[in-house]
């Protein structure tokens, strides 16, 4: 199913195809490539039943704006009555009792949810190898990781198991797997999309965004998910001005694209650097203004990110105590033993490592040396972006330092794995929107992604430029 939602909708409205047919075709794809381990749950009958409902709505002429769009959602997002495991043994049998606002807004416009996708445990990871239910294989090369943490979402879109998948992005968890699997992934501005119903990892970083194959689909889903929600005090009220059709009316002439000097240096796979240069040349030839910019504090992103996010995670994950929901160890003789054993048996290795690191940086005597210091550097990074956006309208950078690596290649060294997020964490530290788009392949036929970062709440410029780049031919 290579066409976009707009094309599909025409076919649905004209009766050329039906939602039932569309859902069946995706379900077949899911079954054919089960070994990719993309889904943690698939809603077979329910999705077909919903398809019939929406087919009827379309015929009756009162279907919603996303009628017949088949989506999947990452298993850290709540959908009432459905399991939400967060890819953790801790929540293996947990059933959500409410629906995330972002998901509900899509349901209200008649999307069909086909299932919930695999991810790194509690969204902590860059390869999907931290899932308690096994790694997701990259559809482009099954010996490689799909990326993480939204690896299942990226693979689901790449393998055409759904049209759109909702992922979450705390430090690159939408953009990095999107790059690894060759799809589009958008991390919205912090505050644009309500986090209500997103299982908290690092609350001041967490965002929900779409992965897909068509820019307009991404824009449409973003528009519908956007907006203030009284249930998320950090959601922003004045973002509803964004309309998907806006992206088609943006004049890209004289748009200023910033190339970040610090991001094209050592450690970047040469083919990715070449691809960036190729894109830059094309944009320059098309009349866009290319400027080199410097963001000197970006080199401290990973350090700052791992202090702040592990600190927030250690606090957020304190709720898993074996008392009210989630896993309780059979060896729970007294309350203290219940806490310790339930947490130690229920959490996986990476989650425990981050809780430990986060507890350490927040502990007495270290708070100023780590946590407070990192908050200061976070401001310097934010200021870097503010300054850069005085000179340019968008920043063009790699999405990842390399293309998809092999399964097992980086699991022995946590720091090595963390450095994978070197180009993506800065947008979460500063809050800015950023999108990864596929622009070709390396010599091993693995997808290459590049990233566009925009001013706060200026997703439309990033989407318009992304659309423009995607429309030019890349080999």
């Amino acid at each position, binding site marked *: 199913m290579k066409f976009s939602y707009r094309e599909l909708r025409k076919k649905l409205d004209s009766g050329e195809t039906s939602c039932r047919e569309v859902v069946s075709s995706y379900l077949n794809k899911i079954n054919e490539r089960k070994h990719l381990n993309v889904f943690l749950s698939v809603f077979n009958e329910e999705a077909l039943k919903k398809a019939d409902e929406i087919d009827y709505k379309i015929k009756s002429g009162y279907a919603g704006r996303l009628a017949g769009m088949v989506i999947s959602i990452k298993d850290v997002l709540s959908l009432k009555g459905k399991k939400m495991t967060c890819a953790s043994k801790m929540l293996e049998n947990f059933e959500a009792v409410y629906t995330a606002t972002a998901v509900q807004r899509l349901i209200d416009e008649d999307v069909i949810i086909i299932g919930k996708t695999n991810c790194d445990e509690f969204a902590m990871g860059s390869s999907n190898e931290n899932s308690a239910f096994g790694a997701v294989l990259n559809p482009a090369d099954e010996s490689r990781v799909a990326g993480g943490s939204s690896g299942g979402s990226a693979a689901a879109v790449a393998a055409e198991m759904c049209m759109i998948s909702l992922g979450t992005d705390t430090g690159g968890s939408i953009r990095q797997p999107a790059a690894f699997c060759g799809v589009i992934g958008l991390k919205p501005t912090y505050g644009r999309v309500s986090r209500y119903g997103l299982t908290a990892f690092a609350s001041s970083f967490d965002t929900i965004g779409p992965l897909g194959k068509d820019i307009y689909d991404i824009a449409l889903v973003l528009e519908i998910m956007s907006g203030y929600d009284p249930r998320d005090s950090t959601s922003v009220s004045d973002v509803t001005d964004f309309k998907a059709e806006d992206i088609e009316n943006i004049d890209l002439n004289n748009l200023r694209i910033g190339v970040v000097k610090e991001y094209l240096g050592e450690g970047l796979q040469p083919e990715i650097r070449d691809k960036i240069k190729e894109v830059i040349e094309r944009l320059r030839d098309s009349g866009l203004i290319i400027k080199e910019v410097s963001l000197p504090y970006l080199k401290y992103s990973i350090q700052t990110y*791992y202090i702040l996010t592990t600190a927030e995670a250690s606090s957020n994950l304190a709720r898993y105590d074996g*008392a009210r929901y989630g896993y309780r160890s059979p060896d729970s003789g007294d309350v203290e033993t219940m806490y310790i054993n339930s947490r130690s048996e229920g959490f996986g290795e990476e989650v*425990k490592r981050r809780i430990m690191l986060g507890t350490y940086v927040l502990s007495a005597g270290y708070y100023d040396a780590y946590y407070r210091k990192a908050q200061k550097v976070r401001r310097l990074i934010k200021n870097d972006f503010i300054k850069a956006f005085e000179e340019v309208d968008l920043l063009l950078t790699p999405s990842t330092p390399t293309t998809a690596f092999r399964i097992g290649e980086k699991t022995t060294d946590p720091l090595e794995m963390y450095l994978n997020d070197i180009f993506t964490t800065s947008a979460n530290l500063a809050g800015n929107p950023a999108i990864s788009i596929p622009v070709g392949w390396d010599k091993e036929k693995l997808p290459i992604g590049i990233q566009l970062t925009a001013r706060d709440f200026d997703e439309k410029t990033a989407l318009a430029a992304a659309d423009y780049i995607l429309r030019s031919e890349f080999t």
Partner: protein
Amino acid sequence: MSVSKEEVIKIAKLAKLKFSDEGISKLQKEMNRILEYIDTLNEIPELDKVEPLYSVNSSENVFRKDEPKQSISKEEALKNAPDKTENFFRVPKVIDK
């Protein structure tokens, strides 16, 4: 800064986690490697003059009126409990005698 084995054990206690001796040593090694990398933040000059950034899009607290509202039902709240009695979460005995 580097973290000692005793500190790792102390942190585990605070985090309500337990590890084998081997696990503690491994964690100590990993945490030190990460902390060593994190310590490059110390090279940033005049950081004492920078205000910490707590939140990227607002610096004010958001308040709501303190009004009772319908939330999830008792049944729903208890639905995922590992152990419960009719209206309560059941946990191991907290106080002896």
